[in-house]
């Protein structure tokens, strides 16, 4: 468990005057995987760069595992490792050499570094590529080697900025499995654009939008926080259900979606069973929570009134 505290965190990029973070406040005991989601320019990368001591905030306090990372960054650097967005392997070194020099930079003795590099390659299932140059590796394998560099280190907190962007579905799934193993003894803080990835992997999710932290918590906590933990989908647009207490969205001509409480979902379900309508009930997806939080889901009042 790693406590992360942010108080009144602001970041403005001087030259452009862009306000990347606006009054971010957070206090969380994070474990496993904490995922930051948000659209482009939401402030995810800025936030991760401040937490990982690469960037100074304009103002505000950030305490990571009891260390003030703004004023004493060197005290936390023993415990953290990061794979930045768009980072890549050094092209003139083999996969193993890339991992090895990273470990040497972290101060491991040569023999220990070699052992750790080989063990990380084994864990990732890419030992056969150890002596290959990056240009001879697929995109997925290159990304696995990047992850192996931080996995092989002693760092307890790992930052991964969009680690799966550009990967094919199979490579992505393989990386998820690796991250799920990694999180057993490390805290992973990652950013992603893929909401299903965040839902699948995360113990906690932080939603950022236009520099503000909108919500943070487990997926269930987020569901509760929006007030609509269930989504009822009715595949019969013409059906009338009086007195709906929830958010009604018309998905298409024949499909209606109702976000509601558990009790309301039960009531609607009873009604639908009696009407022999086709429908499904699911916990509200992260995608729907996200769009509700950023205000991109507009209720169809007309549809609700008609119902």
């Amino acid at each position, binding site marked *: 468990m790693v406590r992360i505290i942010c108080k009144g965190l602001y970041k403005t990029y001087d030259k452009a005057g862009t306000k990347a973070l606006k009054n971010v406040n957070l206090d969380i005991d994070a474990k496993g995987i904490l995922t930051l989601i948000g659209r482009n320019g939401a402030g995810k990368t800025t936030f991760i760069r401040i937490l*990982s001591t690469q960037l100074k905030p304009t103002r505000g306090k950030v305490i990571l595992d009891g260390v003030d990372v703004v004023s004493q960054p060197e005290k936390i650097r023993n415990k953290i*490792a990061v794979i*930045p967005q768009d*980072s890549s392997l050094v092209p003139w*070194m083999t996969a193993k050499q890339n991992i090895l020099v990273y470990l040497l*930079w972290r101060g491991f003795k040569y023999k220990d570094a070699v052992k750790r590099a080989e063990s990380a390659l084994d864990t990732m299932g890419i030992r056969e590529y150890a002596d290959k140059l990056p240009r001879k590796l697929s995109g997925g394998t290159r990304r696995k080697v990047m992850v192996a560099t931080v996995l092989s280190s002693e760092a307890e907190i790992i930052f991964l900025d969009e680690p799966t962007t550009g990967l094919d579905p199979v490579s992505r799934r393989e990386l998820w499995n690796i991250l799920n193993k990694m999180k057993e003894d490390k805290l992973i803080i990652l950013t992603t654009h893929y909401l299903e990835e965040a839902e699948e992997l995360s113990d906690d999710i932080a939603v950022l939008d236009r520099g503000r932290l909108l919500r943070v918590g487990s997926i269930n906590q987020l569901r509760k926080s929006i007030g609509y933990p269930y989504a009822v989908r009715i595949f019969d647009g013409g059906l009338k259900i009086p007195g709906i207490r929830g958010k009604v969205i018309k998905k298409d001509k024949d499909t209606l979606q109702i976000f509601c409480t558990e009790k309301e979902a039960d009531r609607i379900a009873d009604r639908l069973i009696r009407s022999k309508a086709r429908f499904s009930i699911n916990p509200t997806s992260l995608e729907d929570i996200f769009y509700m939080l950023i205000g991109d889901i507009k209720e169809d009042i007309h549809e609700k009134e008609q119902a």
Partner: protein
Amino acid sequence: MKRSRLSQLSASVLANAIYAMQNFPVMLINTILAPFGFLLIIFFVSHGTLLNVAIIGALIMTMVTSGTSLQGDLTHLKNDMKLQDMLVSSPVSPIIYIAGMALSEIVFSIPNIVVLGLLAVVFIHMSYVSAAIIAAVMLLTFAFSVSLGFFISTISRDIIEGWAFMGLISMLLATLPPVYYPITYIPLPFRYLAYLSPTTYSAMIAQNSIGFLSLSSSGIYLSWTILLGISFFILFLGIKRSRWREG
């Protein structure tokens, strides 16, 4: 965990020199040949009369090239590989990183220095004092070139900007100064341009030490003072003004 500084230094040498040479030997050939091209031209054009100066000049230029290469390498690693970001968020300090990277450039230049050193022994019959002066000049030239290279790499936001800076540094440190020939070959008022470059003072001191140029005592003191002053200023700039963690 006890961290080894030696490991941290050796990481840079392995990453930027040993593994590069091992995996791409053509880089080594290119590095060895680079200063000899100009040395040969000077040799032919001067009918051999400037060979001594050109050998010393090639040694000094090897040091300057280390600095400009370092800037190119660091800019590439920082902007294209995001290596600097990875290392900022790790226990390695910027001083150790840059010291290791500077060492890596020296390692890359060793074959060059060895060959040019042998040529110097064969063609220039210099005293131990002259050899020591030339070694000190090479060291200072290396120090300011590398510091300038590091400083510029940390403020370059992308490789295009890095290339532009590299061209400017190359002009300042390598084109303007009379490294392969005496400064008296440059007519006035163009000579004043050469005085803008710290490498000019390196070359003048080295040429004076082998008796090719005859500087007065005050000229020697002035050259040392300027060279030391500029070197310390650039070192200070490299240490204090380089951007490791972004603000």
